[in-house]
């Protein structure tokens, strides 16, 4: 039984009879009160590929077009592979993959600033409990662990520099941070110097391990564990340098995904998923189109469309969509109003999130905005709803949706919200 004297949020939703009866009988107190055990989920091999479009993708030029309306902009809506569902003409290739996708058009979140919005969305905006919650990638790394391949559970493909990014992990501790591959390249100086023999290398590792163990004995070991895990990751990657060998990538894939940054990075994202990384995040920056938005969109949305459609097509062809959850996410959408710079500003009021893959409906649109696209019509859905939905799609049992932080039980997602059942298959 847990040593924690604190009650858990989900306990408040159970009747005592339920709690003492069916719940206790089937799970036992011990199981019910334990945090989710990553090993339980490891065999399921479910994975996540999250595409983060930093700055905010316009819902009106992508998933929720409103052509010929006041705020609809210059572009047309086009039919998709699912009769009755239309997307912006800037996503022609994605439109042909719509039968694999689900679009949530009723997203309503709380922040219209980047500084707060990025973290809030990435963390699922749980209730304030005095701790810094982990980003989705770190959460999945904690809840599900690495796959059987032993590859690092959370890999972040991003423009710019790489390294081990611990800040995503929040209270989970630095071990659950992201291994960032700057410009999809391996970490610098990953391989030992050629002059070092394998025997010498082994001796050095043993010495390092002994020093670390001694150093860590009388110290708080979170950082020590992170340090050790980074070395373990490095060892694993050294055995998988083939992942970074571009000569092994078929030329036709390079063409299909595109030679631009997002194309190259999404292709790497697919390869990391195929190799067995649990959670891959692929970032694209500079979507914050306050000025000249429609020319920007014509450029950026097409840069997204090409590799995203190729990715979905590939995952579907290889039956990986049965196991891989794909998410397209930003910190918010963009204002329906077109400003004097011919731009769109920040808009958390009514925007869209697209997803595909394991546990998710295919060829579905859930939720709606009004005719002008200004506000949600019907139920609004916050990021907390989506975290519940995604955790459920990944097979994480509802009753295990909590962390234990220094004996304090914490729900993994906003405890007032629940999964959006229409999105789940």
């Amino acid at each position, binding site marked *: 039984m847990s040593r924690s004297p604190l009650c858990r949020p989900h306990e408040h939703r159970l009747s005592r009879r339920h709690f003492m009866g069916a719940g206790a009988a089937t799970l036992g107190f011990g199981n019910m009160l334990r945090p989710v055990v990553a090993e339980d989920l490891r065999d399921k091999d479910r994975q996540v590929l999250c595409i983060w479009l930093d700055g905010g993708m316009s819902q009106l030029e992508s998933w929720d077009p409103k052509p010929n309306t006041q705020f609809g902009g210059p572009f047309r809506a086009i039919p998709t592979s699912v009769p009755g569902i239309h997307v912006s003409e800037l996503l022609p290739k994605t439109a042909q993959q719509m039968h694999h996708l689900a679009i949530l058009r009723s997203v309503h979140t709380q922040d219209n600033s980047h500084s707060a919005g990025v973290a809030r969305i990435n963390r699922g905006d749980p209730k304030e409990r005095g701790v810094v919650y982990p980003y989705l990638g770190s959460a999945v790394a904690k809840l599900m662990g690495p796959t059987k391949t032993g590859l690092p559970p959370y890999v972040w493909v991003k423009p710019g520099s790489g390294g081990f990014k611990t800040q995503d992990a929040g209270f989970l501790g630095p071990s659950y941070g992201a291994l960032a591959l700057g410009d999809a390249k391996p970490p610098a100086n990953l391989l030992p110097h050629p002059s070092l023999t394998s025997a010498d290398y082994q001796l050095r590792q043993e010495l390092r391990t002994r020093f670390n163990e001694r150093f860590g004995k009388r110290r708080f070991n979170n950082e020590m564990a992170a340090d050790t895990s980074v070395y373990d990751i490095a060892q694993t990657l050294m055995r998988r340098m083939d992942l970074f060998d571009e000569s092994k990538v078929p030329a036709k894939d390079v063409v299909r995904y595109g030679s631009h940054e997002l194309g190259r990075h999404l292709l790497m994202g697919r390869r990391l998923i195929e190799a067995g990384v649990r959670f891959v995040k692929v970032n694209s920056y500079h979507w914050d*189109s306050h000025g000249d938005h429609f020319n920007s969109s014509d450029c950026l949305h097409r840069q997204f469309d090409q590799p995203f459609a190729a990715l979905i097509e590939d995952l579907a062809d290889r039956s990986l969509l049965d196991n891989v959850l794909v998410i397209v996410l930003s910190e918010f959408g963009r204002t329906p*109003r077109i400003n004097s710079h011919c*731009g769109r500003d920040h808009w958390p009021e009514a925007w869209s999130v697209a997803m595909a893959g394991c546990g998710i409906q295919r060829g579905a649109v859930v939720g709606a905005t009004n005719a002008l696209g200004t506000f949600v019509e019907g139920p609004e859905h916050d990021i907390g709803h989506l975290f519940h939905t995604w955790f459920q799609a990944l097979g994480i049992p509802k009753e295990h949706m909590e962390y234990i932080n220094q004996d304090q039980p914490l729900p993994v997602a906003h405890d007032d919200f629940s999964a959006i059942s229409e999105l789940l298959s």
Partner: protein
Amino acid sequence: MADKPQTDEPIAALTPQPIGKPIEYERMLWHARFSPDGQWLVAVGQDAKIVRWTVADPTEENGTGLTQGESLTGHNGWICGLAFHPKLSHLYTVDSWGQLACYPYSQPETSEPLWNHQSAHEGWIRTIAIHPTGTRVATGGNDGVVRIWSTVDGAPVSHWAHGSKVMSLAFTPDGKSLVSGDLFGIIRQWDLDTGKSIRELSAVPLYQKHYNQECGGVRRLVFSPQGDRLAATGQKEPKGGFATGTPCVIVFDWATGDVLREMVVGDQNDGFAYDAMFHSSGNVVACSSAFPRKGPFWLWHPESEQALLIDKKLSNGLSLSLHPDGRRLALLTSNAPNGNGRGLKDGEYPGGRSRIVLMQLST
């Protein structure tokens, strides 16, 4: 830049004075132009309507002399360009869904187009220009193609691959050539007889690769009445996430292709110089758009080192049109709220509006 042109003639001052109160319109417009006979002012923009005003002399009751009539409909998306036939009362318009249409515009009641092509281009048509004789109209768009059409019936005459997004077109005043400006700041001169590209001018400072965005481009091309100079408008050096830079007009010597003057007016992030025109005084008049009181209206003679007038009160300018009398100027400005989040006004979610400022030009 070419050697600075020298002249002994004093440069004429040009003073704009507003006439009456600005005309308000409830949606965002892109262009407002006087008809060749000066009897109409026509505007197009984001509501896909062709908005018309009759033009008369100002009176005490009607300070501008403009009276709004019925709008013409039939377009979709945004109407992004218009061109008047020089002699007939025909108006040619293009929209962002690829439609080219020809309307009679001078009768008060609404009318169907005389002819139209729903798919004149694949997608967004950015620009339209009419030959000085009125026999041909040229269109260009995001599909990277320049198309020439008969103004009589809309029959296609020819088409040329520019190769990248065509954002601006202009016929030379002698009617022998067409010039097209693209996203990358390349200006091509096309021989109308052969259909060949015979020269390229560089307005490359108007293009920017801003992170992963392709920005800028030649937003408008305009010849001086004598045909000796060509102005290309756009922006330079965008900063930050706005992808907008400093308004800029590049003036070329058309004979040599050399740059006479690069007119950079405004602050960083002021946005684009959207329009320019050559006044008979020799001054280039330009407008630029940004947030209120930032993108200025300006006058600059290419033979002067600096702008003669920079007026931030006449900010947010999107188009300029000189009345055939040479004394009146219509400046179209936008008045669009900006800012993150709801920004409700009296419980309503406001969109952008437009304002047309009529001005008297005196030298």
